[in-house]
């Protein structure tokens, strides 16, 4: 009997009209055009917490693509993270919703089928508080480099 087909969720997180916050959704749309794969569902969302848990249920693997701001970070730098990178954030008290990592913890506590490990591609951004369809100049200048790097990583991820 054949093993059930693996299902992979690739989720671009961010607001598509909020300057650099659109980096996640735009990268996921790019990956969808470059890496068609029957195992993969490409989705975008500007949400968090419980909604992400609902979206991720039923998948064996998940890759989130999101924006990040780190102190001293260089705009356009790209990080490949796993949920282990966020250990310290697992039990934060949130202001409105629970964190997505806490949401996954909840899913596991309820024996839902959620990915064992969450992979995250995070792109260092500059501006996410101003409405615009365009990236900030520093991120826009590195857009091609960003998407090529993420595509290379993503192809490795698919092979794993």
């Amino acid at each position, binding site marked *: 009997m054949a093993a059930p087909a693996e299902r992979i969720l690739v989720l671009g*997180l*961010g*607001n*598509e*009209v*909020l300057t650099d*916050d659109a980096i996640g959704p735009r990268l996921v749309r790019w990956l969808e055009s470059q890496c068609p794969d029957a195992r993969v569902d490409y989705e975008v*969302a*500007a*949400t*968090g*917490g*419980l*909604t*992400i*848990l*609902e979206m991720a249920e039923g998948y064996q693997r998940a890759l989130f693509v*999101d*924006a*990040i*701001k*780190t*102190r001293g970070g260089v705009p356009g730098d*790209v*990080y*490949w*993270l*796993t949920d282990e*990178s*966020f250990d*310290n*954030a697992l*039990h*934060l*008290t*949130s*202001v*409105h*919703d*629970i*964190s*997505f*990592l*806490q949401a996954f*913890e*909840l899913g596991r*506590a*309820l*024996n*839902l089928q959620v990915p064992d490990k969450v992979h*995250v591609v*995070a792109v260092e*951004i500059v501006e*996410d*508080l*101003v*409405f*615009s369809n365009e990236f900030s100049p520093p991120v826009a200048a590195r857009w091609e480099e960003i998407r090529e790097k993420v595509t290379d*990583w993503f192809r*490795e991820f698919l092979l794993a």
Partner: protein
Amino acid sequence: MKRITIDPITRLEGHGKIEIFLNDAGGVDNVYFQIPELRGFETFCEGRPVEELPQIVTKICGVCPGCHHMASGKAVDAVFGVQPTPTARKLRELFYAAHYVHSHIAHFYALAAPDFVVGPTADPAKRNVIGVIEAVGAAVGTEVLKHRRYAQEIQKLLGGHQTHVVMNLPGGVSRGLNEEERKGIEEKAKSCLEFAKFSIKIFNDVVLANKTYVDIILNGPYSLNLYSMGLVDENNLVNFYDGKVRVVDQEGKEHCKYAPNEYRDWIEERVEPWSYLKFPYLKQIGWKGFVEGPDSGVYQATPLGRLNASDGMATPLAQEEYERMYATLGGSPVHATLAMHWARLVELLYAAEHLLALSQDEEICGDDLRTPLTNTPREGVGIVEAQRGTLTHHYWTDSNGIVEKANIIVGTTNNHAAICMSLKKAAQALIKEGTPPDQGVLNMVEMAFRAYDPCFSCATHSLPGHMPLEVNFHAPDGDIVRSVRR
């Protein structure tokens, strides 16, 4: 492949801040609450066809997209001087009832319940939704997710997408319901209603049966004597989707009741140099500072504010619970901030009942989905009740319907002054002179604003998916003497 470990608590910018200023004796002098605000939405809208705005505004916020979509759709109706058809209006209300069910379940179980089920002074590592599930059982957690999913599926079916809703068109909606879909919604609505009743029971068993919690709600430092605002129908019953905005004073006497296009006669917005967000207040009363009482124009537009501003609920079970709440808490209006949790559950019950009633309405599968547009567009205001407060969208266009200007007052903004005042009152009462506050005390200060269900998600899209909160303690000379991040 580059791997790094990041602690986003300390590295993420754009978080909420509570600044607590201490006096010489170590007591609390003042408290400021600061959050980032998105900028440039009006400019972003300018030059676009106004009928695009209901789709664009869903991207303002990942938590309240349905609210913005509804307010925007109504504003666009007003711009074109048209009313949606009876079926279209009912479909919009059906969607919106599901939106409320979805949101209120999340707040109660993920945000409110940890304080009461796990305990307000419990270990922060346990005081979260996981701790709630450990306390009440995994079966309840499964039901929470199941009913959120039901509500989400209804929204997706009607709205075309769970967050990027494409339902509202000028004068109507983009799709109707067939009988098979209606039956599916009806079954989910029945289940949601049972779950709403169960949630009320949990509140009874866990909160109201605990004398300490009732004492905290009624006698703790969580009371503000403010005006109350909410949308009401022609019988002054709570209505999330349509009606007039009613404001009552501290005794429950009507201060005003205005139609959406009159909002600027009654609401003014104040700017403070220390905050990006504005502070709306009642124009006829005036801004007297962050003070309570009838001479201060500060108001609340919350679940409790909505119930205070109304004469009741439009569905039987919610009305029963409304009456029980006010009988228990001493009559309307109630000024106990933590009673918002109970009010939110009354609204959950109403939303579920309304959802079921609409799913059984004989007109809901009609095919009269749009009213033809015949008027020249110009200006329009749309108001709905977002879960977090009264939401106003106001658009101006040229005669071709191209947007010249937009103005939005979002739900949480209405409550900005009230949140600041609640925090200050709680901090002054709970933080004792000469005793550094522990985690439990800090959480009880946070409870003062968590009750409002403030929505800052528009600033939280960056990792880790929610907005951290920072509490800074300032000595009398302004230096930060202690900083706590969550």
